């Protein structure tokens, strides 16, 4: 079985997969192109390199140093965020920013400049990266930071692994007093109510995110705000995750299961406030390993767009378009982005909001829906998240990323990906 991405969509396999476990070694001499493959949690094809070589960067998984004075952790780029949490939460430290799964590598988090539920306070992951080393195919090594090789720093954060191989990185962890998260849940109906209660929640809480039912006639959902507990235990949960052991022949996610799920999820007994362990709050889906197999052998897409602040109408239009199509999934997430800029040239977030939904792969029907949504996103001045994407056109990508040309100067000539070939086609 060849290395795949999280969406499990059909893709042409890499010609070669090589482990990469020595950070001081030079890059291998290969005929074709190279790309680092971390833990395969990006959904589409930014981590794939059909016909070329994938370097399995999970071999670079060592911690290098930690300074308890300032929380600065130096580690190899293949270290998982889960590894960091396992070791550092019991000592009272947490990730400055975390995406919705902890099973991504540090290198992948930087290359995709991931964001989290605290974007309105903390910005993207890239803002908390102090330095990293970039190894290029010409054998050169650069330590990059905001002050040293700053242009390489900017190109590599959100640079989709195309500027070379990151060997190690230094990130700044933040203090926590307990491993719990104090959560406040509020139901809302309609987009206006979402924005009203969200604005209130953002002012008071470090983390906010909303689940929405995109199939209801009027969009409805639950806003989940949270803050690290100010006291309590730092202990980890011992619960081992469940796993979906095999891929069913057809998708278990369809119109019927979806409506039933969404109805039950919206109406479930919901405590207004609770303290939960950080794992179920930040990583609800990490509790079921291989949940991506739910979607069957054809795989699935995720559509995640960012829209500028003024584009609430476009958001409404997108939600209506999805509701009418009857597609879409129970994993629908709505979150506002704050104003804090990322250092990265190709970083995805922009001040405004982001909507993310999974879709079973129903072939042309699904793709046609995405084209309609693209038109709305494009007209509103928004863009799509490469880490989730498997199908946007090169023209759309270039048109929605104003610093595309600037970025292209920093690509390593030996590096490429399926995504990049599409983005430049």
């Amino acid at each position: 079985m060849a290395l795949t991405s999280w969406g499990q969509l059909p893709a042409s396999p890499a010609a070669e997969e090589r482990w990469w476990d020595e950070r001081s070694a030079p890059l291998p001499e290969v005929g074709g192109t190279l790309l680092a493959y971390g833990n395969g949690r990006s959904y589409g094809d930014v981590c794939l390199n059909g016909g070329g070589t994938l370097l399995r960067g999970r071999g670079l998984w060592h911690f290098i140093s930690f300074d308890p004075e300032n929380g600065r952790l130096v580690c190899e780029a293949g270290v998982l965020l889960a590894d960091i949490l396992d070791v550092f939460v019991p000592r009272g430290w947490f990730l400055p920013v975390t995406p919705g799964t902890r099973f991504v590598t540090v290198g992948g988090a930087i290359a995709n400049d991931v964001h989290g539920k605290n974007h309105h306070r903390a910005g993207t992951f890239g803002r908390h990266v102090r330095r990293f080393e970039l190894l290029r195919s010409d054998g050169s090594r650069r330590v990059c930071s905001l002050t040293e090789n700053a242009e390489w720093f900017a190109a590599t954060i959100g640079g989709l692994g195309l500027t070379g191989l990151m060997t190690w990185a230094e990130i700044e962890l933040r203090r926590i007093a307990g491993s719990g998260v104090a959560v406040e849940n509020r139901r809302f109906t309609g987009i206006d109510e979402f924005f009203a209660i969200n604005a209130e929640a953002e002012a008071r809480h470090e983390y906010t995110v909303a689940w929405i039912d995109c199939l209801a006639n009027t969009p409805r959902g639950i806003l989940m705000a949270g803050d690290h507990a100010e006291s309590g235990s730092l202990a980890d949960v011992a619960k081992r995750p469940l796993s979906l052991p095999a891929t069913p022949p057809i998708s278990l996610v369809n119109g019927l299961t979806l409506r039933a799920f969404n109805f039950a999820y919206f109406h479930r007994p919901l405590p207004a406030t609770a303290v939960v362990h950080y794992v179920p709050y930040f990583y609800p889906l990490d509790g079921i390993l291989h949940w991506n197999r739910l979607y069957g052998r054809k795989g699935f897409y995720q559509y995640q767009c960012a829209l500028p602040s003024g584009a609430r109408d476009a958001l409404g239009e997108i939600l209506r378009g999805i509701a009418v199509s009857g597609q879409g999934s129970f994993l629908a997430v709505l979150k506002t982005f704050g104003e804090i800029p990322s250092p990265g040239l190709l970083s995805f977030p922009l001040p405004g909001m982001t909507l993310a939904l999974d879709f079973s792969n129903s072939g042309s029907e699904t793709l046609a829906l995405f084209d309609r949504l693209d038109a709305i996103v494009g007209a509103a001045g928004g863009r799509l998240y490469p880490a989730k994407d498997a199908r946007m056109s090169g023209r759309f990508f270039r048109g929605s990323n104003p610093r595309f040309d600037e970025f292209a100067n920093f690509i390593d000539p030996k590096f490429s990906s399926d995504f990049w070939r599409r983005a430049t086609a």
Partner: protein
Amino acid sequence: MQKILIVGAASAIAEAAARRWASGGNALFLVGRNAARLETIAGDVRVSGAASVGVFAMDANEVAAHPAMLQAAEKSLGGLDIALIAHGTLPDQKACERSVELTLREIGTNGLSVVALATLLGERFGKQGSGSVAVIGSVAGDRGRQSNYVYGAAKGMVGLFLQGLRNRLASKGVQVLTVKPGFVDTPMTAAFKKGALWAQPDDIAAGILRAIGKKRDVVYLPGFWRAIMTVIRHIPESVFKKMSL
């Protein structure tokens, strides 16, 4: 705090185990061939919370070096509670079939050097009247198959040796654990196509720590391999010899 020796510390499973032990605040002594690699791993376990870390560069095939290594480990750790023997190679079966020399060398690395270490450790723990020796064997040691019987023979020898050692030391309160991982996705198995039966090194490491804690004798990791190997062991030889395995 436990005092733990790991031989073959650069193997993916051993590294994962080392990190787990380190984050529990234990003291570690790491043995491997490559000194630079050992420093990298030592750095990792230091950050992970190890009470102390020592390293010793040694090729496990140099049996004459074993006593000095063990002495250094005890000195660095201030005693010894657990020893994990994890070193090994995955021989090229086809190449072995053409070379007696290579076959014997692979059996030396995967079999004899382990027997040598287990002998020393068995003596040591027996005198102490406590301790755990955990050795990474393999499901391949349960039955000889044409695709990897050189490796299987070495691992099978280790399994049988440990069975006897366990029998000898049981009354002395010493645990002798044989770990039999199935397919593990590591650099050692990079050349293989991966499917649903493949496990991650950290899952195996977690299983090893559990098995040591529970004073188990033989564990298959992941556990479903026990069922698979029970079936494989019970196929009559007259049938088995014709199968393409």
